[in-house]
């Protein structure tokens, strides 16, 4: 009987290969680039006027923070070496690519926000309540329509009529006039 050799798994169980974790390396690069930009930008702040005496210049504190940020960030690509279980959990979350539906949702939310001032508060709420369920695959169109009318109406009545919050009429102003 051949005894099976027990092998020690030196290979990282995560997305990392060898010494560095690839995704965390990219993450660290982004954070360091961001920190470097902030450090550079802070360097352009004018010094405190002499009349203020011994006060600390405006750039000192942000620069200190950036140094600390970079110091902490440098550890990130190696984190899987000393906390493999935790990084495994993180890798599970980010293992798959961001789903298409999430990208589309982001796009729709940005579109709704872009048109909010033109549409006005009530119509924006209606668009939200109508478009997002449909986008997310809701097939009960009547239920969506009822929800898209009743929910904004409820929010309008509660916050505008009861709590006195101002709702920008937007496009509805034309119809009201």
């Amino acid at each position, binding site marked *: 009987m051949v005894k099976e050799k027990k092998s020690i798994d030196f290979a990282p169980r995560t997305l990392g290969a060898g010494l560095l974790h690839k*995704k965390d390396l990219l993450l660290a690069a982004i*954070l360091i680039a961001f920190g470097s930009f*902030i450090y550079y930008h802070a360097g352009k*702040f004018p010094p*405190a*006027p002499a009349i*203020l005496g*011994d*006060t*600390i*210049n*405006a750039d000192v*504190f*942000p620069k200190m*923070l950036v140094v*600390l*940020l970079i110091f*902490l*960030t440098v*550890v*990130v690509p190696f*984190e899987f070496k000393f*906390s493999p279980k*935790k*990084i495994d*959990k*993180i890798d599970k*979350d*980010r293992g798959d690519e*961001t*789903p298409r*539906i*999430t990208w589309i*949702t*982001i796009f729709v*939310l940005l579109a*709704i*926000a872009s048109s*909010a001032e033109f549409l006005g*508060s009530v119509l*924006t*709420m209606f668009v*939200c*309540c109508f478009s*997002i*369920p449909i986008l*997310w*695959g*809701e097939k009960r169109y009547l*239920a969506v329509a009822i*929800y898209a009318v009743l*929910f*904004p109406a409820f*929010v309008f009545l509660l*916050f505008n009529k009861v*709590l*006195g*919050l*101002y709702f*920008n009429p937007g496009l509805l102003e034309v119809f009201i006039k």
Partner: protein
Amino acid sequence: MEDVIKGLTLIFEFQNIALIFGGVLVGVLVGALPGLSSPMAIALLMPFTISLDPIASISMMAALYCAGTFGGSITAILINAPGAPPAVATALDGYQMAKNGEPGRALGLAAVASVFGGLFSIIVFLIATPVLADIALQFGPVEYFGLSIFALSMLAAMSGKSSIRNLIAGVLGVLVSTIGVHLATGVERFEFGIQELSDGIKFVPVLIGLFAVSELLTQSKTLNAVVEKMSAKTLKLPTIAELKKLKGLILRSSGLGTFIGILPAEGSTVAAMMGYNEAKRWSKTPEKFGTGHAEGIVGPEAANNAAAGGAMVPTLALGIPGSGTTALILAALVMHGFRPGPYLITETPELVYAIFGAMLIANIGFLGVGLVGAKYFSYVTLIPKKFLWPSVFVFSLIGSYAYSSAMFDVWVMLLSGIIGYFAMRNGFSPAPFVMGLILGKMVEETFTQSMVIYNSNFMNFFDSFVFNIFVLLTVMSLTSPFWGKIKNLITGKKSESVF
């Protein structure tokens, strides 16, 4: 005593009682719904409370916070889907007990333990807040700088996926707080020509984005997840004999939870996990844990609710949030024009005691809610996500716009949400960022003042004994994630901790 009576009198006005019960109902509801959380509910409510009486609004938020912690256990027990992170530990034995045919008993044990934990911590809150505030009044800028650094260092031990990422998020939060005009010199920082940034980034839109929009995007991935429909059960209170058996555990877990809550940055989730582990460690029958053991429900539940009260102590006495949710309550205090920190209790003692009253009512209130409505609250998980999350987005839009009637805030909210979503995917949590954002101004102000006092020589800070203590505590908290590993290396044992 006069202030206590004044605070309690304020609370017992009809409008305030109604708001507190509203807070309890919303708290249990959002606690029960996986994905929704009390920080999210507070962030969404915050802008709408501007027109309300400040004491009533803050009390409502405190009530929501207490009830939200309990609400999470309902769905944890009935469908093994913890509505809130602090209820994760409760699910281990609570769901097993429910599966064993005793869901009512599991809910009853959770409710009673929560009430005891909550009441215990409120008593500590009442005693400790003025004492701690008195001590803090003796602090100068350098001591406060030390304290705020210690509070930020506690982010390393905060519940989350990674200590390093928690600290990075905290530093980023502080960095974002530096946007706007530097008060000491009048220099404009990181405004990039955007006029709206001269006052700095406003808390509320960022909080709404981080807690609501990023969660909406996370939920967009799991739209078709099927929620198990549970049969409605009634809550069954434990017997006196059972309570007598569990009283030691309840007291121990309440004490532990309150202590963890008082520590800056540590909240109910850490308390619940430690409550579960300690209950198991002290138990005569540890082998029964995970099979539907009463001690496995009582331990974490008493601890997580006690932490809620405990977390209010540093928030109100020092202006240092005791948890992610109390960071939002702190932001609400600032929004309503209060000065968080030791001056709060000297300038507006009635507010502190009103919050105490609100939490007291909330703790009794959610027992009532649990007794009457646990079975109904468990049904909220059946609300389709495709309708629930657009509603959350509507509140996010209206809330961030209502704060200062500016579309700029809506964009801040959206961007915070989108960045928060991608950050969460990479292991970052929103709570440390929020703590950094809220503490940022204090850290910079106290640092600048200290540098001026000590002739721009940082080494002179160490002349202060209290500062040295905080430095020592900071070092201890930063190294705390490694203690267990070092201990295990020395003893050669494997950790028995469940979490």
